[in-house]
Every structure is written in C-alpha cells, then in structure tokens.
C-alpha cells in the first residue's frame, strides 16, 4: 500500500491573517473563509510549495514542536489533515 500523500487543492489561493494561536484564511479561488488553529495553518504552509507524505508531514511537525511521534501525536495531526480535507483546503489524491 502506497504512503498517503497530501497536497493543497488545485487553485487554492489563500490570504492569511494571524492572531496569536488562531488565524483566518480566505481562499481567493473558492471565496471561502476558514478559522484555523496554529497547527493547521502550519500544515497548510508546509504544503504550500509541494505535496508531502503524511509521515513526513508528521515527523517534520514533531521536529518543529520538539515532541515524540507517538500514536497520540500521529492521530492529533491526522485529525487536522482530515479537517483540512473537509474544508476543501487539502486533498490526498492517492487514497
């Protein structure tokens, strides 16, 4: 089974405004506005240039936060990726 890869949806063109630990993000392409926490925004930033495997996203995030990648952290980040999927910000084409 191939590893899950994430990327931003085609056309996604965000304007981002950050306040403390939260941000609002306006997608010029869809016209939608979303509220994102700091980790979700970081995931969006990590995907901005290119797609990334789920494992690499999670390990990079763990490095930045200086935490161990355990099951809890893994599902914590997966939950945010799934939320980005539902918001039509990110997609995982190979699933």
């Amino acid at each position: 089974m191939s590893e899950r890869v994430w990327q931003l949806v085609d056309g996604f063109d965000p304007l981002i405004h950050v306040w403390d630990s939260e941000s609002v993000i306006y997608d010029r392409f869809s016209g939608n506005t979303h509220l994102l926490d700091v980790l979700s925004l970081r995931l969006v930033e990590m995907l901005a240039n290119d797609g990334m495997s789920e494992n690499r996203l999670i390990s990079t995030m763990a490095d930045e936060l200086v935490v161990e990648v355990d099951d809890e952290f893994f599902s914590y980040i997966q939950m945010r990726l799934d939320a980005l999927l539902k918001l039509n910000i990110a997609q995982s084409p190979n699933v």
Partner: protein
Amino acid sequence: MNLDALSVEKLQQKLSTEGVIFRTGPFTVCLQSPIESVARGIHLLYGQYPLVEAGEFVDFYVRLARPRGLRRWLKPQVEFGFDGNHPFKPLPLVQAFPMFEWTFNWCIANHMHRYLVVHGAVVERNGMAAILPAPPGSGKSTLCAALVSRGWRLFSDELALISLHDGQLVPLPRPVSLKNESIDIMKDYAADAVFGPSYLDTKKGTIGHMKSPLESVERAGEHAKATWIVMPKYASGVEACLTPVSKAKMCMLLAENSFNYSLLGEAGFKILTEMMDGCESYRFDYSHLDDAIATFDALEPTAE
C-alpha cells in the same frame, strides 16, 4: 430644512404625489406613499432628518402603497415597491410603517456594497465605537436603546456599515426597533425618549420604535473607529460579565453575520481583518440594563 418643517398634512400630500426625499446617514431615499400611517410615522420618527432637494442623487426610490384588486377592500394590505419592482409579498396595511423600516434595511443590505454590511447594532462614545453583533432575541436592540438613552451615540441598531475605503464605521442613525416586552421596558427606562406606536402581530411579534436622539442624527457625518466587538446575550438573573473572545472567532462570526461579505470577496476579508486588529472582542452576558451600561462605560480601548 428638516422633514419636520412640513406639517403632517403637507408631508402626506407630498408623499402621496411626487414623494419626499430625505437623507439618513450616507443614504438618500425618495419615499412615495399615500398611506396616512406612513406619513405619521415618518413625521414622528424622522422629523429631524434633512430634506433633500429634488434633482439631487437618490440612492433608493421606495414606494409603499395598497396593492390593486378586490382584496384591498376585504383585507387591506401594503406593498413595497423598489425601482418599480415588488420583491416581497404584501403585509397587512397597519404594518405599513414597520414595512418601511424593514425594507429600507433590505435596500441597504442588498445594494450598498461600498460598505461591508454586518447585522449588528453600533454605538459610539469619545470617538470609539462598539459593534453589537447578535442574533434575534439576544437583547441587542434593547441594550442599544438603553446605551443611547445614557449618552452613547446611536450609529445603528441593525446595520453596521464598515467603509471599504478606510475601515471606519459609518453612522446610520434611524429609529431603534424594539420587540415585545422590550418596548415597555424602554419606555420606563428612557422616559424622555420618543416612541412610535406599537404594531401587534407582525412576523416579529409586537414591534415599536424609539426615535433616534437628535445629536445622533445631527452627527451622522462623523465616522468612528471600531474599538470593541461585544456580542450581547440577555439572560434573566445573570451578573453582567464580559468574556474575551478570540479575534479569529469573532472575525468569523462577523463574516457569517454580514449581508455582503461573500459578495465582496477579498476586499471584505481585508477590511474585516484590518478592523479586527484594532478591536477587543467579548461575549457579554447581562440581565440588568444599569449593570450593562456600567460595563460599557468602563470599556477601555485596545492597548497598542
């Protein structure tokens, strides 16, 4: 010359014929109506508003009249006309004046896209304005009326106009619309204020209007910076309490409560987020108007 320079009879005669053009906030409306209760309502509640000479630019041409047909004799109604169109079903004739208020809001919310238009009251003091975004039943208009009766300047009890040009709030002082028990509460609380008649059995229950204070009408050209966003919630027996709300969450709430945020797109996002940068945001629970006013009077501007 203000509208109350005309007698009620003269006003009604003009309304019935060429119409009366007057200015409220940044907007000019030409109102035509042969209905007597409209003339009385306008004379009582809009008397201090400036008349505009025929030939000047008019934002909205509004007509309130009885629809034609047999039904007019069985069940008298009033119909709203806008630029010759009739976008809404008629209402009972006795609701003609409230219909003017509702449809005027509709005109602004659906056509004035040089502003981000948010559903909420706005009051101002010392150049600093508070936006009160809230759903029906939250006590927004009651709180707005109480604040206005205790020295805050009325910008609007229904539509917050945020200029796309500079992000400032633009006053739109019009009668404060009160519902049900709030009408008597405010008549007791603001004994010096002028109130129009109560209209029973409207789609919103009983409706009454409190006249905008003269100072608010006279200063309608003075814009102000949004300083606080306060989402009020009336609940019996609670202590007045301000609870901070994150800027991002309040920004989303304002966007959801805006009539034209989606239409404005990027410009709406930019003006809203820039405005939020300079605002403090709160949820506000209250049960007593005096406590609520004391809380508002103690609000401090954002530390920058």
